[in-house]
């Protein structure tokens, strides 16, 4: 019995030793792969096998040997994704590094900030993403040279959005001249200068943008908006002729072209070039632009006819506004009621309109069209498009990426990024849509006022109020926004009720003032 019990005790001790050994082995097995993965990931990265290195860095990042290795793996993962061209995915890990701020325990902060600046200069990360990034202030001394443009530009934008213009000026001025953000910063310097009433300085900044913007897509866009802003500044300081000359430089295929036509019509109005005002409005009212939102054009048209004492035409203009926009009210109101608090749904509605699959709210399409041409929609659209492209690219990296969970992690990030962009843009677009509705109501009130004054026979008083601006006899324009040059060969085409696409923007009326006591008030017929 004794012998037996001793034997049993020995057995129990052996079992304990074996169990301990197994536990130790398991511990070794659990920790060694992480270390091995990190080293292997480095090897794969050195071999430029970024697909493998990304998966391995991700594993090492999930099971690091220590905190230092976790950071290295995080950096390696971001770099691998960057090298694979998955810029949004890479930005996730760069952003995590940057958000931890500059400290000794975060050695990759400066490099990550630099890389984010590079990514954002080629593919916008989105305003909300960058705001998150710089939520905690960073000592400028910790911002590396190549990232200073990115950093100060966005601080400037944030200050500008909060209407802290002086502060914004300070940030924009600190964007280095060699930075890809410099031209954009100069552009904003122009905007802020104009807001501060420094018009000449503003024009100088915009001229500088025109001259230094690159000859690529973004550079052309900057050049175009710089032209538009120079035109607007000139308009503001009553240099109407110069204003129109800059409006004329907006290319026809641009989304801003019709804005330029409309704003130039106001400049013509203030120069008392009524035939040009009406010509520009004729373009806006053509069937080519039936879904574009320019309700104010009817008001401008009616007061132009009023100036010319052409009362029947005034009535026609007011009727035109009513016929075109009265049906809009009902649909817009219904649309705003339905999507109140449903940002995603509202964004989707605009998207459906843009791709041509919407068959509801037809009478509100002009407002949806205007919303679909805003920077807010465009930026969100870019985020969605770039995210979708990356999501589809992720499916190519199956195998190790899916087994390690990297693919799901990145897909989840990209989907969240899309959702955030849609929600943010939807909210802002809804607010803008509501402001369009209010604007439309205000214009409707104005049409009623004009009509009422006419009915009450107070036309002379109204006309007296409209004698704003000064007649510029020196400035002569042909159709559209083209100045008349001496010895220029011109072509004339009659408008007989049909619109030719190439003629849009070149119409000019050929009518006189009908005011009995004010024959000189209108323009000379036939330039």
């Amino acid at each position: 019995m004794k012998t037996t019990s001793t034997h049993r005790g020995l057995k129990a001790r052996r079992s304990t030793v074996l169990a301990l050994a197994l536990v130790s082995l398991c511990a070794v097995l659990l920790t060694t792969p992480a270390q091995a993965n990190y080293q292997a990931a480095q090897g794969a990265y050195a071999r430029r096998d970024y697909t493998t290195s990304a998966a391995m860095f991700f594993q090492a990042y999930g099971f690091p040997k220590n905190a230092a290795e976790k950071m290295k793996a995080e950096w390696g993962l971001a770099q691998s994704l960057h090298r694979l061209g998955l810029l949004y995915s890479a930005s996730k890990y760069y952003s995590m590094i940057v958000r931890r701020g500059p400290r000794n325990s975060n050695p990759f902060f400066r490099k990550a900030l630099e890389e984010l600046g590079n990514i954002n200069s080629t593919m916008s990360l989105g305003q909300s993403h960058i705001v998150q990034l710089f939520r905690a202030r960073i000592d400028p001394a910790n911002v590396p040279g190549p990232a200073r443009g990115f950093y100060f530009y966005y601080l400037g934008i944030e200050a500008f959005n909060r209407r802290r213009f002086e502060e914004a000026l300070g940030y924009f001025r600190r964007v280095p001249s060699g930075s890809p953000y410099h031209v954009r910063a100069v552009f904003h310097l122009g905007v802020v200068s104009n807001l501060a009433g420094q018009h000449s300085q503003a024009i100088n900044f915009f001229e500088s943008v025109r001259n230094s913007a690159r000859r690529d897509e973004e550079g052309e866009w900057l050049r175009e908006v710089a032209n538009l802003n120079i035109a607007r500044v000139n308009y503001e300081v009553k240099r109407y002729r110069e204003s129109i000359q800059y409006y004329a430089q907006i290319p026809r295929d641009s989304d801003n072209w019709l804005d330029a036509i409309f704003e130039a019509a106001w400049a013509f109005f203030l120069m008392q070039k009524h035939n040009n005002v009406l010509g520009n409005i004729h373009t806006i009212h053509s069937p080519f632009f039936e879904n574009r939102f320019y309700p104010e054009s009817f008001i401008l048209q009616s007061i132009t006819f009023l100036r010319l004492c052409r009362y029947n035409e005034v009535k026609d203009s007011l009727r035109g506004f009513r016929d075109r926009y009265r049906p809009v009210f009902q649909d817009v109101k219904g649309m705003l009621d339905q999507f109140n608090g449903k940002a995603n749904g509202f964004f989707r509605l605009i998207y459906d309109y843009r791709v041509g699959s919407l068959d509801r709210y037809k009478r509100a399409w002009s407002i949806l069209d205007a919303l679909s041409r805003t920077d807010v929609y465009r930026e969100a659209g870019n985020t969605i498009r770039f995210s979708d492209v990356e999501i589809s690219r992720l499916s190519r990296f199956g195998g190790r990426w899916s087994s390690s969970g990297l693919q799901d992690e990145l897909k989840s990030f990209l989907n969240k990024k899309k959702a955030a962009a849609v929600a943010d843009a939807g909210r802002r677009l809804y607010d803008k849509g509501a402001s369009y509705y209010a604007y439309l109501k205000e214009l409707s009130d104005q049409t009623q006022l004009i009509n009422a004054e006419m009915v009450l026979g107070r036309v002379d008083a109204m006309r007296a109020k409209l004698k704003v601006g000064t007649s510029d006899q020196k400035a002569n324009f042909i159709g559209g926004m083209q100045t008349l040059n001496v010895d220029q060969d011109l072509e004339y085409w009659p408008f007989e009720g049909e619109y030719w696409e190439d003629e849009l923007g070149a119409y000019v009326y050929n009518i006189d003032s009908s005011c009995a006591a004010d024959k000189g008030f209108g323009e000379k017929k036939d330039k």
Partner: protein
Amino acid sequence: MQAGVSCSRHHEQSRWKSPAVLLLTFFSAILPAPQIDVSRDGARISESSSMAQSGGRFDDYEIRVIRPRYFTKTGRMELGGQLSVVMNQTFTYTYLATGILNYHFSEAWALELGGAYGFSIDKEDKRLLDSEFDIKTQIIRTKYAFNGGVLWTPIYGKYQLSTGRLVYFDTFLSAGAGMTGVEYLYDHCSPSERLRDGTITPDPPPPGTKSYPTFIIGLGQRFFASRTLALRWDVRDHLFSYNDADGACNPETADGVSKLHQNVTMQLGASHFF
């Protein structure tokens, strides 16, 4: 965006008074205008500067398009190359390589110098008449032509193709004078032979070319492919008087009657403006 907007139709400019303009409009209409969906494509005719300055400009219209002219010719040279074919010949085909040099001193008026040189090929009909019926045909073979003249361009217009692309064109009348060289081969003549009465018929003259003063009228169009290149066609009537004796087998016995001859040429080519 606004797809499906019908923006053009064929225009009739019935208010034009000038018969010449109406005639040219007719010729414009018979041109090989693009065979396209009529509801979307069309042609428009503008007025030339000269007409505009003389009070054209569609003054009666409440709304007009006034803009810098797409294609300006004033003060520019036009250098062109064409292939000319004489169209009114029964027994030969005549092809001429043609060069033109125009100077446009206004949008409507230009001076032109031109020259052409080529060859004729007998048609099968001529050979059959000779071999089957022993009928020998005397032929006016145009060898060359050169001329100077004036061009008047009263019409400037545009077509819209189904693709939406616009093609600007103008239509012109031409008149001028020059020389036409006619090659005589005397291939319808028999060689020298002794007749029954003992006389010996002379050999036909050796082949040669004779030149005749020529008057030319024509019309044509240019289609502007770019601001420096135009495709151009002309139809011209070259009218000249030749001496019948020049082509006779025995010029000494020939009557020497003057006869009028017309060469109607169709010319196709391209012009470069500089």
